[in-house]
């Protein structure tokens, strides 16, 4: 539910990323088959890839575990997502794996990094755009 809304939120901002010279990529961790379904559900026509091994999540030290997945904030954010029509039909990938955002330059320096603290927590698109130097 929340991941879908996070990705749906990107759609109206895609041009802004482009104007800043940024390539925008969504990475998931399910089977590559589910990319298509995810694309249809979110309406996101940009780049989506998957790392079924989830090794990238481990390297970036994104959180994992039931405690980071079930919190009150998760429930309220989830409810909000459902009311906005982004309900979670079924989970493809690891339900206990948290995500995050990283911005990497061609010189391999990091312009922005955020590890989601719990399910329902994610950085707003506006924040990412604001924090990245043009």
């Amino acid at each position, binding site marked *: 539910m929340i991941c879908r809304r996070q990705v749906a939120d990107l759609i109206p901002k895609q041009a802004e990323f482009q104007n800043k010279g940024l*390539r925008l990529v969504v990475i*998931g961790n399910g089977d590559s088959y589910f990319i298509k379904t995810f*694309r249809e559900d979110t309406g996101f026509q940009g780049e989506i890839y998957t790392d079924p091994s989830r090794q990238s999540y481990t390297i970036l030290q994104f959180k994992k575990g039931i405690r980071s997945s079930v919190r009150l904030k998760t429930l309220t954010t989830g409810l909000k997502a459902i009311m906005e029509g982004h309900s979670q039909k079924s989970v493809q990938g690891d339900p206990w794996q948290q995500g995050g955002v*990283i911005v990497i330059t061609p010189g391999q320096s990091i312009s922005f990094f955020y590890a989601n603290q719990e399910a329902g927590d994610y950085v707003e698109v506006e924040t*990412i755009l604001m924090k990245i130097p043009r």
Partner: protein
Amino acid sequence: MQPSLQQIEQLGQLEILDEQEISFKFNSLWKEQTTVLIFVRHFG
């Protein structure tokens, strides 16, 4: 905690898949352009 250059290099060597199950290295994403990578929890 922000990853180190070593971690970014490790990440770059990993393979990802597209919809056609074609695999390529992570670092090809940011080779020519600063890239925003949004890691979602799952495809739920």
